């Protein structure tokens, strides 16, 4: 074993596997290629950017992806639906509950059991999904401030996120990759006392959000760095397939929780914040960040309403079994099915083809919101400064697990 060759080194290996799109010899005078990543804090993971600059100005940006490709779709083609769920967690690992919710909804609708699910199960799903949305937005806001040069907000946000992760760990046993929402039900009921603790957390987080807003969003340096930077007009956003807070930051009131009204969202009262161009043009980096901040407030509102239901109308009973409607055999009829749901990053979709003969999907395609949102980076960055490109990339809020799948 010791003498076995593990890797054949070749000077040209990088050139062969991930060649640059631009040839240095074709560049104009004063232009040069700068390579950012794949290991770079501001790329939020393993993303490599090939940047053509002319002085400080950006001529073009070519993202090179795939450093975190883990063959989700190939795995899904060889595993039953319920066993694919842990892989779904690992796509958007910052918001695993939301992806699980989307996937599970798709399978339930294919089986036609979506109306048999207990209301308490649905409310618990929404609570954990919204908690996870908060956690994901905290990371987005904290790292964004750090990209721009403010160190303080990041540990503050991590501190607050830790409360959420502990709550979710209490419920599911895992900090980030839960496998908690099952097809037809839940892994477990909420632990005793969860509702009270969660309500305490809601009370705790409200002033912290306000504090963060004053510290970052109203900060002059932050406004100078983000207002009027990376302006994304709404028409272009739709053409690029942009969804989520980015699209809402551009001023379109489009949220799948309202549009598709899935799960128990129609029974809950919440607003959809949209970018208004308060600090600059509509659809700039500041607007996108502000939308995320406002969504945190809305998520807290949603959680509180769900908790009221979970301690009142749908309160814990002795005979409540979260696995009561979990099907023994998941075998949908032969069909093509596309399901979508609102994740913190945008529209996460799953395309299934069931052949009607097995528990394994013939094809399972995941549409990652980050993947599609990232594709606009080149268009937004062109003509700006290198520092602006970092600000734009941060405001897109990508998670590489979902980009590369």
């Amino acid at each position, binding site marked *: 074993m010791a003498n076995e*060759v*593990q*890797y*054949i080194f*070749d000077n040209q*290996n990088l050139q*062969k*596997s*991930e*060649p640059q*799109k631009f040839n240095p010899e074709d560049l104009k005078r004063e232009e040069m290629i700068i390579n950012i990543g794949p290991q770079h804090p501001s790329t939020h993971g393993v993303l490599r950017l090939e940047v053509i600059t002319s002085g400080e100005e950006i001529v073009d940006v070519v993202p090179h*992806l*795939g450093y975190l*490709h883990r*063959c989700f*779709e*190939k795995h899904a*083609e060889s595993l039953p639906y319920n066993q694919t769920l842990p892989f779904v967690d690992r796509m958007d690992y910052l918001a695993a509950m939301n992806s699980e919710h989307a996937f599970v909804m798709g399978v339930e*609708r294919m089986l036609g059991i979506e109306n048999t699910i207990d209301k308490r199960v649905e409310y618990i799903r929404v609570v954990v999904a919204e908690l996870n949305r908060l956690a994901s937005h905290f990371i987005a806001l904290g790292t964004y401030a750090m990209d721009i040069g403010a160190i303080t907000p990041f540990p503050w946000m991590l501190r607050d996120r830790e409360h959420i992760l502990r709550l979710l760990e209490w419920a599911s046993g895992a900090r980030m990759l839960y496998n908690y929402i099952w097809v037809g039900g839940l892994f477990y009921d909420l632990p005793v006392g969860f509702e009270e603790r969660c309500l305490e957390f809601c009370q705790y987080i409200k002033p912290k959000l306000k504090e963060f807003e004053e510290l970052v969003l109203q900060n002059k340096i932050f406004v100078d760095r983000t207002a009027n930077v990376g302006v994304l007009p709404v028409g*272009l956003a*739709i*053409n*690029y*397939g942009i969804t989520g807070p980015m699209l809402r930051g551009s001023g*379109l009131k*489009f949220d799948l929780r309202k*549009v598709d009204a899935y799960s128990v969202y129609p029974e809950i009262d919440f607003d959809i914040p949209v970018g208004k161009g308060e600090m600059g043009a509509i659809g700039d980096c500041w607007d996108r960040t502000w939308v995320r901040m406002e969504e945190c407030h809305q998520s807290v509102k949603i959680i509180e309403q769900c908790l009221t239901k979970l301690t009142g109308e749908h309160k814990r009973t002795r005979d409540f079994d979260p696995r009561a409607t979990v099907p023994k055999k998941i075998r949908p*009829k*032969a*069909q*093509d*099915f*596309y399901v*979508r749901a609102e994740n913190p990053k945008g*529209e996460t*979709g799953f*395309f299934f*083809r069931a052949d009607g003969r097995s528990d394994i999907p013939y*094809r399972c*395609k995941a*549409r990652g919101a980050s*993947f*599609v949102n990232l*594709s*606009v980076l080149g*268009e937004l960055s062109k003509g700006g400064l290198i520092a602006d490109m970092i600000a734009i990339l941060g405001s897109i809020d990508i998670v590489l697990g979902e980009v*590369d*799948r």
Partner: protein
Amino acid sequence: MKFEEIISNLTSKFGEEFIVALHENASPKCIEINANGLVEAMQYLHGTEKLYFDSLSCITGLDNGVEAGTMEVIYNLYSIPYGHHLMIKVKLGREQPTVDSLTSIWKTADWQEREVFDLYGVHFENHPDLRRILLPADWEGFPLRKDYEHQTYYRGIKVAE
């Protein structure tokens, strides 16, 4: 707009033969069309006032296997102002799967088509930048094809047993 109205719109514009098959059990309901007329049909669906499918949510590649000898590319459309969905499907020969690119209509098609090319080897005509996107450029084969067999060694590293 209802599915039937979309179909009657399409048939009145392009003729009856244009639609190859209807898949009503799909969700959203699916129209299978001839690959030759894809771009015109999409331009019509995107540009016509009452239809106005302004958002291309998802492009999926699919391999039906060696026996069937076909591949499919599936497009999920959505109209944000009207709120209607549509699934469009084209069937391609497995030997040289080629279909026109939709990048002239939706810019999101760029990366999504690159992904289908990367994993299935479907060639998109008139695509501005058709390169592999997720896998390394020197990877052999198209992993999501049903008859795919991975290379045993990649740069001296054993890929798998």
